[in-house]
């Protein structure tokens, strides 16, 4: 019995504790995107044929499991050569501070910034830390976006035609007229996953940018402009008008985005507010769906309407890897025009390389064509206090269900804002 125990223990020690030598010609790449695994494997095969460098593509899904794996690997100092950080910017900053992420600024600047120029600037901004950033990270670019995303309006071509609408509406008045026409033939106007607060925030923010411009929004966040300002009332009124016109599908404020995607794919509504990832979703749910993408119809012409968007998925290079240069070379190759067009074709995501736009499907091109009009809270100079932001969005939900007026909501939000500002001043 004792002998057997010793033999088993010996086997454990011999097989378990032996460390494998590092292979210099193999780089490891960890990601979380199940639907892109095949395309990544294909690219890895092609890269090996061209360069002799093997890329080991490891998938850890869902994203929660991936995040756990990345945090645990960082603690154990066994991060792969290329990986993504799926968390808030402050976590990204803490990875940089701990020396786990390579500074890619010099690489992007090489050859007259050729690499940087090829990629959508908004996608790079998500991975950039600017001078004087609140995270106190050394200014620079630390990540590589391999695709981009943005959130727009979708319209169902067949349903619009049924209502006698020939062209997608461009202004808010045209949009309201389209809603009326759709109602006459018994078609629901608009669906969106506004049970998810961030999606409603996104739509409201589009109109805030259009009505008052970025400077005034930031001034509000700083506490210099009240929410009772006529421009903010105008933003709240967008929702009141849409409700009064009967634009929304029933239960829009409790709908999760996946259910709103089902509604649009199954032609239960003519318009939808959704992100570019929907191309993949609609393809699976209804391959025959005829739809197009358009910007939310603008109300004012003084300030441009800005939509949320930026990097879809970004990857960083392990600063402690002995194969750092090889990892950077692979990411450069993946973000080159040819590989980006291939990824867009195969995975139906928007390429991060703008030179690849000419060779991607029309609907993706519609989405990507307005990347220059994108913005995102992560790149704003200020963000709203979470308590105020929550009251603001829940207030909009109250307007949509007819529970409160825009003025009431504006007053309530401003009261919380003042309370929070007072707290801040005391600190």
């Amino acid at each position, binding site marked *: 019995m004792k002998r057997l125990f010793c033999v088993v223990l010996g086997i*454990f020690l011999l*097989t*378990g*504790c*032996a*460390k494998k030598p590092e292979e210099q010609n193999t780089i490891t790449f960890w990601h*979380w*995107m*199940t*639907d892109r*695994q095949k395309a990544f494997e294909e690219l890895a095969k092609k890269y090996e044929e061209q360069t002799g460098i093997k890329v080991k593509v*490891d*998938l*850890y*899904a*869902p*994203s*929660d*499991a*991936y995040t*756990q*794996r990345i*945090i*645990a*690997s960082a*603690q*154990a100092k*066994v991060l792969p050569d290329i990986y993504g950080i799926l968390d808030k910017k402050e976590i990204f900053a803490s990875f940089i501070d701990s020396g786990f992420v390579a500074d890619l600024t010099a690489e992007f600047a090489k050859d007259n910034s050729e690499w940087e120029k090829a990629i959508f600037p908004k996608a790079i901004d998500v991975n950039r830390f600017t001078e004087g950033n609140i995270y106190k990270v050394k200014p620079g670019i630390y990540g590589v976006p391999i695709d981009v995303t943005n959130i727009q309006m979708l319209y169902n071509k067949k349903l619009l035609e049924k209502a006698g609408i020939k062209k997608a509406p461009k202004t808010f008045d045209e949009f309201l007229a389209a809603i009326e026409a759709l109602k006459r033939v018994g078609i629901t106007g608009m669906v969106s996953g506004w049970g998810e607060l961030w999606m409603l925030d996104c739509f409201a923010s589009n109109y805030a940018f259009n009505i008052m411009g970025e400077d005034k929004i930031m001034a509000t966040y700083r506490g210099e402009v009240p929410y009772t300002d006529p421009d903010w009332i105008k933003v709240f009124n967008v929702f009141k008008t849409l409700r009064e016109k009967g634009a929304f599908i029933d239960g829009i404020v409790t709908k999760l985005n996946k259910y709103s995607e*089902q509604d649009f*794919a*199954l032609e239960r509504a003519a318009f939808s507010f959704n992100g570019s*990832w*929907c191309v*993949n*979703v609609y*393809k*699976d*749910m*209804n*391959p025959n769906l005829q739809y197009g993408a358009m910007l939310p119809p603008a109300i004012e012409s003084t300030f441009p309407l800005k939509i949320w968007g930026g990097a879809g998925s970004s990857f960083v290079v392990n600063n402690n890897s002995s194969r750092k240069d090889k990892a950077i070379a692979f990411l450069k190759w993946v973000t080159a025009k040819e590989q980006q067009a291939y990824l867009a074709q195969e995975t139906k995501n928007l390429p991060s390389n703008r030179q690849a736009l000419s060779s991607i499907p029309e609907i993706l091109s519609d989405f990507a064509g307005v990347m220059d009009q994108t913005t995102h809270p992560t790149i704003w100079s200020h963000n709203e206090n979470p308590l105020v932001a929550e009251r603001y969005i829940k207030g909009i939900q109250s307007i949509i269900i007819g529970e409160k007026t825009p003025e009431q909501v504006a007053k309530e939000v401003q009261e919380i804002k003042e309370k929070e500002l007072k707290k801040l001043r005391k600190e």
Partner: protein
Amino acid sequence: MGINRYQVYKFFKLTFIQIFLMSVAVTCLFPLFWMVRSAFMTNDTIFTDKSFIPKIIQLGNFAQAWTDGNFGVYFLNSIIYTASVVTGIVIVSSLAAYAFSRLNFPGKNFFFYMFVAAMMIPLPGSFVPLFVLMNKLGLVNTRIGYILCMINVGLSLSIFLLKTFFDKMPADLEDAARIDGCGKLGIWWYVALPLAQPAIAVIVIFNSLNVWNEYILASLLLNDNSKMPLQKGLMVFQGAHSVDYPILMAGLTIAALPIILIYLVMQKHIIKGLSSGAIVG
């Protein structure tokens, strides 16, 4: 002859109990039925066909799930993991529970309560230290590393269940075995283990379920696809934003079959195990 009040009361009571139990059964079985029904549908019909039996039957989903999900390799891995982990848990937990129940040694209660306390720590809470430890031992991305961790996961509850069982075992049985020449290990093997069969059946089914359905720890500790369990195959059908529901449901049906089979085979012991106590010995 009139119907007496007691008979009326009994009739209504029984009817109420039957309706309640039937509704519980329907609640349990409906998700299974929905899974199997969806496994026979197509992507086009899954959101539109509301009929009880699908109008278009797609039998190919099962074959596609098996091949696309690489189920052959994952299925074998899951069988290896489930068999090894459950065997490990039964051996270690029965030895430990026997020791906690029948032997006297310093710190006996302290160590037992430590094991019980471990039940309160959720697995994800220990991921980071566990990964660091396994990495230091060189056991990351090894089958044995994953098996050892999973044995550890199942030990607390199993020791607790078996100790409760052994506590009720009559001392006379041990004395008789000792007279027949059995040592401590002999008593454990020849007396305690055979008597604990119902409790072991409960441990087997609980832990089989746990290991068969486990994925998060596997994705933390294992890198190679060739070592991943069956749940990994199911992830293939779930994209970040879209899900291939019919294939996923076919995959889930395949994955659920062995566990249903184990449950059917062992259900007699499980019921006995859960209601046991006074009948030991």
